[in-house]
């Protein structure tokens, strides 16, 4: 019996029908005990892209602007911004009353320094930054961008969620973007209690009494970020069955990423709520190494894609309930303005026999296929095993390697043939936000050696991407380019989109104010 199966069974028995314990009182009632998705090991959201660090940063830091529930960018720390008639000068004005946790006022120079550090690591802003002529503080509350040419996407970059621009004091933000900051001082709704931080055990934040939230109602990540809890305590529990039991017993109040296997049992427990809180699905992809045989042949890549049925993959990851996942047979995030399936016919074949015939016609000659599956990432592992099954059924010469994530991310950087430590297929997942626009769509890039692992070289994709950066502000033009991009990507088939699944969260019934957002944040939430 596998450990995952066993823990599913025991936790299932455990969590079903367990009555709620007595409600906490006093201080305990104002402390939210959270099981985060991962261990908080790094505190600097610029230095690392780890989602858990970003979620920590949302507690501690504030943003100049943020994305609302409709995906529009709204002011947050900024009172607003003025754009000159020619679109070449953007002047931001800060709200009154913004104060860092160390008591210092938030000034325009802090924003300038923070933007300057963040833009050195954010791939999206790196694309736009050549358009920026100058970024300067005008006075304590105002700073200005001067641009070489109009760049409406600058606002999208500043308000993005996947790599948010958090504001730190200038003295901290002057740290090299490739070094970790040594202090955690923000101006957000909660203060990080470094003395109580024990990496691997717990991390604690206390309410920032001096925080002045916006007056608007909370809307996605925009609106008033009102801290309603005295403390937020993260407890790192790595074992899903233990997490499930801790939720059932009321030892914890909120579980960010419950294992899908445990959801049916958790739903039967009257003491907890299981709901989809994140507004974005998680998208899976199957990536080919286009430098090495056999997948340096696009026809072979398309033949494999013909055998893929996204539904099989999604069931393997998220279970049989179709409400928990969705097929998405294009390269852009479904239900976003650029989503389309132009040229996606190859993904609608879903037939192993036709795929076999296509593979033979493509000239597959028994070359070895090395597929690396990360055993320590259950979802990505499940996607990998589904592809391995398809490769076997197609009669290809498969070598399935089970490795940990740390090994995989090193090996995937190898451009060598499989006989010399290279690879043929890997899988990964990404949030829907990251795949919504061509400018930051990592897997779509096809600029050869500079592209993401697999290194596809499709000049037409790159040309279209650059065209979108220029003309994407016009919805009709943006749509036309997006359709052309989808067609090109499907033709080249350097990665196979595998659809998306929802990642629900779990919280105790005495937790209220939980709202939908593109990231796990804890303002506006309270506990009785």
């Amino acid at each position: 019996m596998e450990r995952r199966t066993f823990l599913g069974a025991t936790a299932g028995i455990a969590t079903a029908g367990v009555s709620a314990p007595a409600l906490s009182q006093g201080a305990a009632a104002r402390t939210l005990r959270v099981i985060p998705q991962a261990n908080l090991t790094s505190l600097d959201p610029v230095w690392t892209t780890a989602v858990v660090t970003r979620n920590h940063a949302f507690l501690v830091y504030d943003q100049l602007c943020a994305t609302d529930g409709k995906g529009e960018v709204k002011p947050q720390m900024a009172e607003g911004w003025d754009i000159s008639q020619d679109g070449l000068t953007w002047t931001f004005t800060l709200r009154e009353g913004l104060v860092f946790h160390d008591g210092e006022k938030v000034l325009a120079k802090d924003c300038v320094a923070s933007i300057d550090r963040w833009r050195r690591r954010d791939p999206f802003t790196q694309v736009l930054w050549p358009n920026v002529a100058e970024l300067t503080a005008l006075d304590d509350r105002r700073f200005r961008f001067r641009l070489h040419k109009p760049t409406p996407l600058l606002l999208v970059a500043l308000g993005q969620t996947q790599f948010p621009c958090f504001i730190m004091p200038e003295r901290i933000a002057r740290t090299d973007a490739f070094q970790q900051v040594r202090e955690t001082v923000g101006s957000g709704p909660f203060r990080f209690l470094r003395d109580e931080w024990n990496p691997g055990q717990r991390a604690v934040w206390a309410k920032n009494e001096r925080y002045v939230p916006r007056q608007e109602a909370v809307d996605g990540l925009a609106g008033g970020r009102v801290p309603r809890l005295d403390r937020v305590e993260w407890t790192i529990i790595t074992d899903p069955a233990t997490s499930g039991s801790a939720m059932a017993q009321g030892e914890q109040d909120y579980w960010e990423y419950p294992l899908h296997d445990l959801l049916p049992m958790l739903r039967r427990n009257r003491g907890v709520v299981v709901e989809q809180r994140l507004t974005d699905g998680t998208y899976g992809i199957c990536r080919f190494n286009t430098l090495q045989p056999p997948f340096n042949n696009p026809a072979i890549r398309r033949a494999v894609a013909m055998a893929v049925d996204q539904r099989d993959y999604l069931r393997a990851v998220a279970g049989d309930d179709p409400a928990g996942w969705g097929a998405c047979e294009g390269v852009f995030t479904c239900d976003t303005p650029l989503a389309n399936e132009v040229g996606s016919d190859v993904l609608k074949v879903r037939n192993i026999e036709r795929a076999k015939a296509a593979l033979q016609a493509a000239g597959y000659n028994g070359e070895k296929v090395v597929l690396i599956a990360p055993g320590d990432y259950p979802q990505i592992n499940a996607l990998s095993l589904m592809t391995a099954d398809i490769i076997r059924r197609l009669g290809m010469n498969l070598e399935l390697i089970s490795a940990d994530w740390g090994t995989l991310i090193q090996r995937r950087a190898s451009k060598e043939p499989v006989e010399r430590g290279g690879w043929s297929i890997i899988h990964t997942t990404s949030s829907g936000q990251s795949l919504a626009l061509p400018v930051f769509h990592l897997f779509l890039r096809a600029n050869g050696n500079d592209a993401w692992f697999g290194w596809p070289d499709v000049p037409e994709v790159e040309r279209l991407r650059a065209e979108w950066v220029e003309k994407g502000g016009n919805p009709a033009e943006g749509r036309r380019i997006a359709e052309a991009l989808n067609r090109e990507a499907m033709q080249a088939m350097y990665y196979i989109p595998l659809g998306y699944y929802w990642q629900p969260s779990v919280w105790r019934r005495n937790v209220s104010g939980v709202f939908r957002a593109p990231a796990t944040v804890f303002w506006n939430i309270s506990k009785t």
Partner: protein
Amino acid sequence: MFAYVVRRVLATIPVMAIVALFVFSLLYIAPGDPAAVIAGDQATPEDVERIRQSLGLDRPYLVRFGSWVFDIMRGDLGVSIFTNLPVVTMIKQRIEPTLSLMIVTLCLAVSIAVPMGVVAAWKVGTWIDRAVMGFAVLGFSVPVFVVGYLLAYIFALELDWLPVQGYTSFSQGFVPWIENLILPAVALGSVYIALIARITRATMLEVLQQDYIRTARAKGAGQTSILFLHALKNAAVPIVTVIGIGIALLIGGAVVTESVFAIPGLGRLTVDAILRRDYPVIQGVVLLFSFVYVLVNLAIDLLYTLFDPRIRY
């Protein structure tokens, strides 16, 4: 005796040096790159390389090893790549839960297993013997995590007697401390109890056949006195050896037990560090474990003199 202890303590230095060289080399050749973990999916190869440089991971093997050894000699185990905290601080944060778990498990296991083994040897061939041996087989066969889940289900979820997970420091009181440790200690101790009980039984069976036991009986010594004063003392050397070896089992088992019961100990610190390739933490913890093994072996050697007067150093 004192000279022997000094010699043994000094002998740990080359042992630790070999362990250090081995651990460092193993990590050097092992696949994985912390810079890639830090940089994330979106990073360019240049970004990863810059992070690697900032962490000093681009330096040659000998330079890195020399620098590490130099730091160790000054009592500095380095700084975690990820948390930016000194490794010594991280070990200090984690040592109490692991030490507590091991002490409670050890006390529990020895106090249960030794009498079990003695009684099984005394009642050899009876149902008591078979029951003890049956338990020993079960203890060996059932994985620690299965025992852990079952105990948590019965005693935490169903009966609500004990907490499901977590650790409370001893400084916050004995009761909350022991409440959090009972289930993990029983789960971790199951293998250990089985091991010690079997060895105790086997050794006792051999000792109970000896002439001096027959002599003790002939002199009219009581059964309890024969078992625990005459026989057990003579069987103690192999039992103590197994208890010592078992500490290695405890450290290994603690990794799983700490995960199942969410105890923030050294086992989990090690696993987390390995998965992230946090080299300074891995090296520091492995060195510490090696040092503990060496000290435990020394303690066992010294204990032999208490049980067997013929042994002299």
